[in-house]
C-alpha cells in the first residue's frame, strides 16, 4: 500500500514521514489516510471556518466538539448540530439516510445530551429518478428517527437538476442537558479503560470517510464502494439510553461516538482533546466477521457503537447499566499518560505507534489566499434584470404548485413529529416550537439552506441562508441562541468551487456577525460532484432560539376577519433574482444582496412585535415563492370562512408577488399594530405597505389593475398536488 491508495498527497506523505521521523507502516498509513482526509481533517475548509463568529453570551461550547452547546436558561443547556450523509444516501438511499440520522444523534448523545428533536434538509434533482430517490431517503430518515423515538419536527426540501446525482441529506439534531453536566469528549485520564459499546465491528463503510466522501463521485469510484453501513435504530435506542444513563452517574471520564473513520477517529480525537495517549488491544474488539485485519478494524464505520472512558474503580457500576440495556461491550484498551497512541495486537504489540496530535491535529490545512476576504465580497456580475411587465392569474398557481413550493405533507407525515409530547408546532408550520418540560422557556427550531440564492452569487447566498433562518425565529419573538451550518459544495481543488466556498462562508460569517448570532458548530461536505459537475454551493443553516412562551406560539395565519394585511419589505426592492418564479422561466440570476444592518433592525422590530403580540396578530416570513405563496399558505392555514383581499400597483404586481428578497414579512394585525409597524418602517421607502384586509369571503383576491380571485379549494389542490397547468 502506498500513500495514494489511502488518498494522501506526496506532500502530506512527506510531512508524515518527517513528523514520525520514519516511514509509516501500512497500518499507520491507513490511519493517516482517514484522519487526514477532507472529511475528517477539514483541511480545505478549516481556515475558512475559523472566520465564523463563535462567541456569544449564550455559548457554552463552540466548534471543536461533537456538537455546539448553548444556554437555554440557568438549568438547561442545548446541544445541536447539523451533519450530512450525502454520498451514502446516493449509493443506498434508505440506509444512507438512516445512518445519517443515527450518526448525528450519537454526536448529541456524546455531548451528554438527550436528543429531543430532528430536522432534515434535503436536496434532490428534478427528474423521475430523483423522486424515487427522495422517496427512499425519506423512508430512511423516518426509519431511524421514528424507531429510535426522536421526533422530526421540522425540515426543508428543494429541487434542482444539479442535485440529480448528488442529493443532499443534511440532518440537524437538538438535545438537552443539565447545565452542570461537564462537556464529555475530553477528560480521559491515564489508567482509565476504553470500553467499546454496541454493535460488533464489521467491514462496513471502510473508506467511507477517507475516500468516498472525500473524492468526487463517478465511474472511477465504483471499485472503492465500501460495504454499505446498515442502521440498527433498535440498538441505537439501547445505546442512547445506556450512554445517557452512564453519563448521568457522573462516573465517566469521557464519551466519544464512533462516526466517520470509526475507532481511528474516535480514539485519536479523544486522546488529542484530552491530551493523553492510549493503548488499544485490537484483538479485544468484538468483530462480526472472521479474519478482519487491524486496518479493517480500525477503519470500520459500523454503526451503533460508542466509546466510554471509565476508571477501573467505576467499571462495575457502568457495566451494570450497560448490561441492563442488553448491550454488548468490551474493554479494548487503556488511556496512557504518554501522548502516544499504540495499536497493539497479539502478533505485534506495536502495530501502530503515533502521537495523537500528529494524527488528529497536524494535517496541513489549505492556505487561504491573502486577499480572499475582499475578493469574495466583490459585487457579483449583474445579470440583466428580469421584470415581467404584466402578470397572469396562472402564474400564482404555477409557483404555488411548483416542486419548490408545494406542500411537504407527503414527506413529513412519514415522520413521527409528535413523540416525546413537546411539539407545539410541528412540520405543518415553517419552524418548530417545542416546550421544554419543567421550565417556561421553550425552543424555536428552524433550518434553511437556499441553494438557488447561492447559485450565481455564493456570498449573497450565504448571507441569505442566515437571514432566512433568523427571520423564522424573529417571527416568533424567539431569541437566537446559536447557529449550526452544514456546508455542501463540490471539489475544493477546483478554483471556482473553492472560491464559492470562501464566498459562501464569508456570507454566513458576515450575516451572523450582523445579527449577533454565533455559529457553534457544523459540518462540511465537499466533493459533491458527479462527472465534473458540482452542485450549487449549499449552506444549510440550523438555528435554535429561546421561545418566551412556547405554549402560545405567535400565530402564522389570521384567525379573524377585519385585520390589516401588512407587507414588510425592508429593502423596498422587488427584484426577482434567485426566485422560484424566475427559475420557472429562465436560468437563475444573482440573488439581490441583503443590507444586513437593515435586516438586523427589521428582525429586532418584528421580534418585539411578536413578543408583545396580542392573540390576533399573525406573522409569517415571506420565503420561497414570495408574497403570493405566503398569502396562499396563510389563507389555507386560517379558518375556512376567511379570505384575503390585497391591492398591488398594476405595473409591478408580478415582481411584488414573487420577489424573494431577504427580510420580508407578512403581518395580519389590528390597526394599532399596523400603525406601530408603519412608524418603525416608515423611514425606509417602500418598506411598509398596507396591502389590504382579511375578509370573510373565503377567497384570495389580488387587485392590480384587474381583480383576480383564487378559491380556497383551488389553492388547496394546487398546494397539495402541484400545478397541473
Amino acid at each position, binding site marked *: 500500500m502506498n500513500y495514494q491508495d489511502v488518498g494522501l498527497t506526496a506532500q502530506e506523505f512527506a510531512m508524515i514521514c518527517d513528523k514520525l521521523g520514519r516511514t509509516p507502516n501500512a497500518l499507520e498509513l491507513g490511519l493517516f489516510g482517514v484522519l487526514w482526509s477532507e472529511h475528517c481533517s477539514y483541511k480545505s475548509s478549516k481556515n475558512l471556518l475559523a472566520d465564523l463568529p463563535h462567541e456569544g453570551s449564550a455559548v457554552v461550547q463552540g466548534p471543536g466538539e461533537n456538537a455546539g452547546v448553548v444556554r437555554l436558561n440557568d438549568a438547561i443547556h442545548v446541544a445541536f448540530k447539523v451533519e450530512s450523509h450525502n454520498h451514502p444516501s446516493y449509493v443506498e438511499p434508505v440506509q444512507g439516510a438512516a445512518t445519517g440520522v443515527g450518526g448525528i444523534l450519537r454526536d448529541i448523545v456524546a455531548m451528554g445530551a438527550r436528543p429531543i428533536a430532528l430536522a432534515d434538509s434535503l436536496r434532490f434533482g428534478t427528474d423521475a429518478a430523483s423522486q424515487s430517490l427522495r422517496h427512499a431517503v425519506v423512508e430512511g430518515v423516518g426509519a431511524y428517527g421514528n424507531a429510535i423515538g426522536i421526533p422530526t419536527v421540522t425540515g426543508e426540501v428543494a429541487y434542482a437538476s444539479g442535485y440529480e446525482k448528488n442529493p443532499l441529506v443534511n440532518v440537524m439534531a437538538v438535545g438537552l442537558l443539565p447545565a452542570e453536566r461537564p462537556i464529555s469528549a475530553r477528560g480521559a485520564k491515564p489508567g482509565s479503560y476504553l470500553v467499546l459499546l454496541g*454493535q460488533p465491528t*464489521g*467491514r*462496513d463503510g471502510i473508506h467511507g470517510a477517507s475516500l468516498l466522501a472525500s473524492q468526487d463521485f463517478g465511474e472511477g469510484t465504483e471499485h472503492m464502494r465500501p460495504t*454499505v453501513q*446498515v442502521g*440498527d435504530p*433498535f440498538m441505537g435506542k439501547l445505546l442512547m439510553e445506556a450512554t445517557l444513563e452512564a453519563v448521568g452517574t457522573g462516573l465517566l471520564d469521557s464519551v466519544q461516538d464512533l462516526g466517520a473513520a470509526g475507532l481511528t477517529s474516535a480514539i485519536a480525537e479523544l486522546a488529542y482533546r484530552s491530551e493523553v495517549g492510549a493503548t488499544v488491544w485490537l484483538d479485544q474488539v468484538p468483530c462480526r466477521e472472521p479474519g478482519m485485519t487491524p486496518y479493517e478494524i480500525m477503519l470500520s464505520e459500523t454503526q451503533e457503537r460508542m466509546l466510554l472512558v471509565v476508571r477501573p474503580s467505576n467499571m462495575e457500576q457502568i457495566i451494570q447499566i450497560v448490561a441492563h440495556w442488553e448491550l454488548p461491550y468490551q474493554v479494548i484498551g487503556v488511556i496512557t499518560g504518554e501522548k502516544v497512541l499504540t495499536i497493539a495486537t497479539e502478533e505485534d504489540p506495536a502495530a501502530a505507534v503515533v502521537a495523537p496530535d500528529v494524527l488528529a491535529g497536524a494535517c496541513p490545512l489549505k492556505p487561504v489566499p491573502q486577499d480572499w476576504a475582499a475578493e469574495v465580497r466583490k459585487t457579483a456580475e449583474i445579470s440583466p434584470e428580469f421584470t415581467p411587465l404584466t402578470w397572469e392569474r396562472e402564474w400564482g398557481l404555477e409557483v404555488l404548485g411548483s416542486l419548490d413550493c408545494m406542500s411537504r405533507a407527503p414527506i413529513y407525515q412519514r415522520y413521527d413529529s409528535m413523540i416525546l409530547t413537546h411539539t407545539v408546532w410541528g412540520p405543518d408550520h415553517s419552524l418548530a416550537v417545542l416546550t421544554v418540560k419543567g421550565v417556561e422557556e421553550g425552543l424555536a427550531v428552524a433550518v434553511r439552506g437556499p441553494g438557488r440564492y447561492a447559485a450565481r452569487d455564493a456570498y449573497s447566498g450565504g448571507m441569505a441562508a442566515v437571514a432566512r433562518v433568523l427571520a423564522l425565529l424573529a417571527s416568533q419573538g424567539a431569541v437566537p441562541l446559536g447557529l449550526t451550518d452544514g456546508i455542501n459544495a463540490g471539489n475544493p481543488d477546483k478554483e471556482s468551487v473553492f472560491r464559492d466556498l470562501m464566498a459562501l462562508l464569508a456570507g454566513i460569517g458576515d450575516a451572523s456577525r450582523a445579527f449577533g448570532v454565533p455559529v457553534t458548530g457544523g459540518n462540511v461536505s465537499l466533493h459533491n460532484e458527479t462527472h465534473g459537475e458540482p452542485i450549487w454551493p449549499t449552506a444549510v443553516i440550523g438555528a435554535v432560539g429561546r421561545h418566551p412562551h412556547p405554549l402560545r406560539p405567535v400565530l402564522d395565519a389570521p384567525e379573524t376577519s377585519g385585520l390589516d394585511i401588512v407587507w414588510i419589505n425592508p429593502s423596498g426592492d422587488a427584484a426577482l433574482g434567485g426566485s422560484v418564479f424566475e427559475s420557472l422561466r429562465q436560468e437563475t440570476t444573482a440573488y439581490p444582496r441583503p443590507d444586513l444592518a437593515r435586516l438586523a433592525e427589521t428582525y429586532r422590530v418584528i421580534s418585539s412585535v411578536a413578543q408583545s403580540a396580542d392573540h390576533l396578530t399573525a406573522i409569517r416570513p415571506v420565503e420561497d415563492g414570495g408574497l403570493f405563496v405566503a398569502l396562499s399558505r396563510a389563507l389555507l392555514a386560517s379558518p375556512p370562512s376567511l379570505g384575503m383581499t390585497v391591492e398591488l400597483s398594476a405595473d409591478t404586481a408580478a415582481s411584488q408577488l414573487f420577489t424573494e428578497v431577504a427580510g420580508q414579512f407578512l403581518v395580519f394585525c389590528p390597526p394599532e399594530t399596523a400603525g406601530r409597524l408603519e412608524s418603525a418602517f416608515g423611514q425606509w421607502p417602500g418598506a411598509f405597505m398596507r396591502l389590504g384586509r382579511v375578509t370573510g369571503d373565503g377567497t384570495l383576491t389580488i387587485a392590480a389593475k384587474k381583480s383576480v380571485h383564487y378559491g380556497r379549494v383551488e389553492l388547496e389542490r394546487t398546494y397539495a398536488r402541484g400545478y397541473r397547468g
Partner: protein
Amino acid sequence: MTFNVVVDVAWKEEILDPAGQSTAKVLQQMGYAADNLRIGKQIRFQLQAPDVAQAETAAREMAQRLLANPVMETYAVRVVAE
C-alpha cells in the same frame, strides 16, 4: 405464455442484518437454536413471455435493476411455466 417467477433476495454476507439478529435472539429465548439467521425477501409475480428463456432474461433484468440493490443484496431467480 404465462410464467411464474420467484426472486429470492438476500443480504450479502458481510451486510449487517439487525432484524435477523433480533429474531435469532428471540428464537433462542424460546428454546430454539437458529444460527446465522438472515431475513431476506421473496418476490413472486407472473410474467407474459414467448418462451422461458425470454421470461428468464426479463426477470433477471428486473431483479438486477430494481428488486435487489446490488450494493448490498444478492438475488436468485426461478422461472416456471404456469
